[in-house]
């Protein structure tokens, strides 16, 4: 079936550094999402993105977070600067946006901030 890829699978960085998480969504999908899952907790919505714009973001989507998808390439989540509480698994998802939509998820990027 359709696959969403995420690069890298693991990332370890020092607090205060910048990190960019990359998502390769399903071809021809129009809607993109990021979710955050802290160890032992539920997956929680961060942001959705359509037509080059953030449509909605949650309170977890701090000012240090940004998303973009330049020229139809990777859909990225950038955190600058990172904080200890940003340590989590970040899941990217994409959706065609038609019919009763389904979000297709990537395998996640495990981010560890030291």
């Amino acid at each position, binding site marked *: *079936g359709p*696959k*969403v890829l995420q690069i890298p699978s693991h990332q370890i960085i020092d607090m205060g550094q910048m990190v960019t998480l990359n998502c390769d969504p399903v071809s021809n999908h*129009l*809607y993109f*999402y990021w*979710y955050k899952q802290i160890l032992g*907790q*539920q*997956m*929680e*919505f961060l942001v*959705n993105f*359509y037509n080059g714009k953030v*449509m*909605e973001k*949650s309170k977890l989507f701090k000012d240090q977070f940004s998303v973009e998808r330049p020229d139809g390439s990777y859909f990225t989540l950038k955190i600058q600067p990172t904080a200890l509480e940003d340590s989590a698994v970040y*899941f990217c998802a994409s*959706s*065609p*946006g*038609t*019919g*009763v*939509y*389904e*979000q*297709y*998820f*990537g*395998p*996640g990027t495990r981010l560890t901030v030291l």
Partner: protein
Amino acid sequence: GDSVTQTEGLVTLTEGLPVMLNCTYQTIYSNPFLFWYVQHLNESPRLLLKSFTDNKRTEHQGFHATLHKSSSSFHLQKSSAQLSDSALYYCALSDRGGSALGRLHFGAGTQLIVIP
């Protein structure tokens, strides 16, 4: 706000026994869309079932679930567990019906382990 509750964190079953994973939800939306996602080890969460029709059974790959708005439930069932069913199961609610802008609210997940 919208939320999903999965009461069992871990379910261990012997192969061949029936599976039932609980899911209840809270939402102000009158037409909730409910989903079950399954995540096998080192894989992506994958959609297993979805429903938005009250009291209608939906089935896929031997699993089934019925959305009951009266009890705000969407329990996942299977008549006979297989070893390959061992995985993490998430129940999720869309807070905007079938809109692609809907945010998914996930339960905590239920780890299902099927033993021989």
